[in-house]
């Protein structure tokens, strides 16, 4: 028996080779590169020091953090409202709405940036229309600025938030609402005392995914503002593969910082989904098990398709 199993291990060899070569080795190389001393010898934290002393790179980090934070926050608020709304429809309409959101979630990266240029760019349809109609409220708007970027980021965050959040609304059982009503609670009191606390893990978990998604987003920003806007992902790209002077060590150090931020966000998500599992498990045990299976209909691996990183 043992012998036969050992033979089966051969099936793992190609997998191990591929993962070592294209996942672990590059990460190791990047880590090593970020602490490589001048001239290729010794270990130094000089690159990190340089980053934290440079107003330019600090600004890039700050911009990235801010844009990720704001776009995730807006995304989660809009996504939360829409996710609740979507659970109020009949399953047939709900599935259609979800399909449409899922479809637009595919519309990311370069094509998305391009669509926004058509709509709101310097010669965009709306820009020209508004000018024609004399609506100067939008005169100050510039797609290639911070507000423009937030707008586009929010676009790819909303469907993602929606797809990740709506199953957890099915975890809020109607009978909890009914019990609360009979005990004298108004709807908002129910949401404050039971509904939202039950959703909290899902909300923070989704926030983690959205944040990581925005931090790593490259294609959208690159296509929209090119190298002109100071974002962490864009800086890394130009330091490593750009046309300017290549500074791979500095790029590595910046990349390590970016990776740390996204990994922390993903770990947050992992924690939170564990917590919410505890809740849903309890809900499943106290009564019919039909509800959780309905919530499980959303295939997480489909919903969590990384949108902007493409």
């Amino acid at each position, binding site marked *: 028996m043992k012998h036969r199993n050992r033979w089966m291990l051969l099936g793992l060899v190609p997998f191990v080779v591929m993962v070592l070569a294209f996942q672990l080795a590059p990460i190791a190389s990047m880590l090593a590169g970020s602490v490589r001393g001048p001239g290729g010898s010794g270990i130094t934290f000089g690159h990190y020091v340089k980053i934290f002393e440079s107003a330019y790179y600090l600004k890039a980090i700050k911009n990235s953090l801010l844009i990720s934070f704001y776009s995730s926050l807006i995304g989660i608020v809009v996504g939360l409202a829409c996710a609740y709304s979507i659970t109020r429809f009949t399953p047939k309409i709900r599935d259609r709405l979800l399909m449409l959101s899922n479809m637009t979630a595919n519309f990311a990266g370069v094509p998305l940036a391009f669509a926004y240029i058509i709509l709101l760019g310097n010669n965009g349809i709306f820009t020209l229309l508004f000018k024609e109609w004399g609506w100067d409220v939008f005169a100050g708007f510039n797609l290639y600025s911070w507000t423009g970027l937030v707008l586009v980021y929010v676009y790819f965050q909303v469907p993602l938030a929606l797809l990740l959040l709506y199953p957890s609304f099915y975890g809020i059982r109607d009978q909890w609402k009914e019990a609360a009503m009979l005990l004298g609670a108004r709807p908002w*009191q129910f949401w404050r005392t039971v509904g939202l606390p039950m959703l909290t893990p899902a909300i923070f978990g989704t926030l983690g995914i959205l944040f990581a998604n925005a931090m790593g987003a490259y294609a959208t920003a690159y296509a929209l503002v090119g190298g002109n806007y100071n974002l962490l992902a864009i800086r890394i790209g130009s330091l490593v593969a750009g046309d300017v002077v290549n500074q791979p060590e500095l790029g590595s150090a910046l990349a390590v910082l970016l990776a740390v931020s996204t990994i922390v966000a993903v770990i947050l998500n992992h924690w939170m989904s564990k917590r919410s599992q505890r809740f849903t498990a309890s809900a499943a045990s106290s009564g019919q098990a039909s509800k959780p299976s309905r919530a499980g209909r959303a295939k997480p691996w489909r919903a969590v398709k990384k949108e902007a990183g493409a």
Partner: protein
Amino acid sequence: MSASYLELRGIRKMFGDSTVLNDVDLTINEGELVTLLGPSGCGKSTLLRCIAGLTEPDGGSIMLGPTNIGELPPRRREVGMVFQSYALFPNLTVYENIEYGLKMRGADKKERQSRCEELLALVDLENKKDAYPQQLSGGQQQRVALARSLAVQPKVLLLDEPLSALDAKIRKSLRTEIRDIQRRLKMTTIFVTHDQEEALTVSDRICIMNNGNIVQNGSPEELYAKPRTEFVARFMGSYNVLSREEAGRLFGVAGGSAASYALRPESVRLLPASAGEARRDRRVADGTIESISVLGNIVRYSVVSSGVKLTVDALNDGQSHRGEEGATVALELDPSQLLALEKEGA
């Protein structure tokens, strides 16, 4: 004490084209425990939800004392409800769950605390007050749900199949516990169940429901002894329901006026085939035992006599005659035990 307290008049509810409640009338006295008993889909849970205000009836009125609560939102009806799935708030502890209604009503902290302690003692869960619902057993969770709905001192307590998610042993002990608490508090209670044994043990009065109607309403003894229709007879126990023609064959008399008759399984006695003469007022018929099953203190025989299949129950006292499967036996039948049944829907 016996004045009608909760009074339902002409409650009607349609779901699409199907009538779920068909002009139901029901009055309940103060302090009474009334059971709505019926198969699933008979409308008993919908009726309960109408009283609570969770489902809006299409017509009819609901009076609670002098108030017409049919117009009020659920939170102002002063009605407590315990759900089959407990519906405890998973993010709150046992104590916080019980406290919830008092908090929503703006009771001050001292009052809340003394009331919660009282209820925790009532359901015997003082040592679990800081636990979360998912850390409790099903029976404990249901006791918390009971305490939670009693905390706000409702005028009527509604129990929607409160025991059906529990296993048999806990179900039996919890139903006595619920009945004790109900008696102690003199709480006007409506108990919904599909289990006739449960209904017989806990109720002051039972309403049997079928197809959106209350088909019979009476004390447990009354319902068990005198089922009015075939549906009730079948639902209340293992009554043998005989057509007029079958009853005639079995008892050797050409039938009465009713369409069907009920015969209680314990009213038939099994005798050895050679038992000889019957007593004067009894009739003896031959039969063959088809199957035997032992249900604890009762042995249930399935016997075929004159082409009629009968269920016969005998006490499992180790003394009375026991045939074997396939054996020929004599049945002692008492014509006075034959109950005439009304037509369905009469």
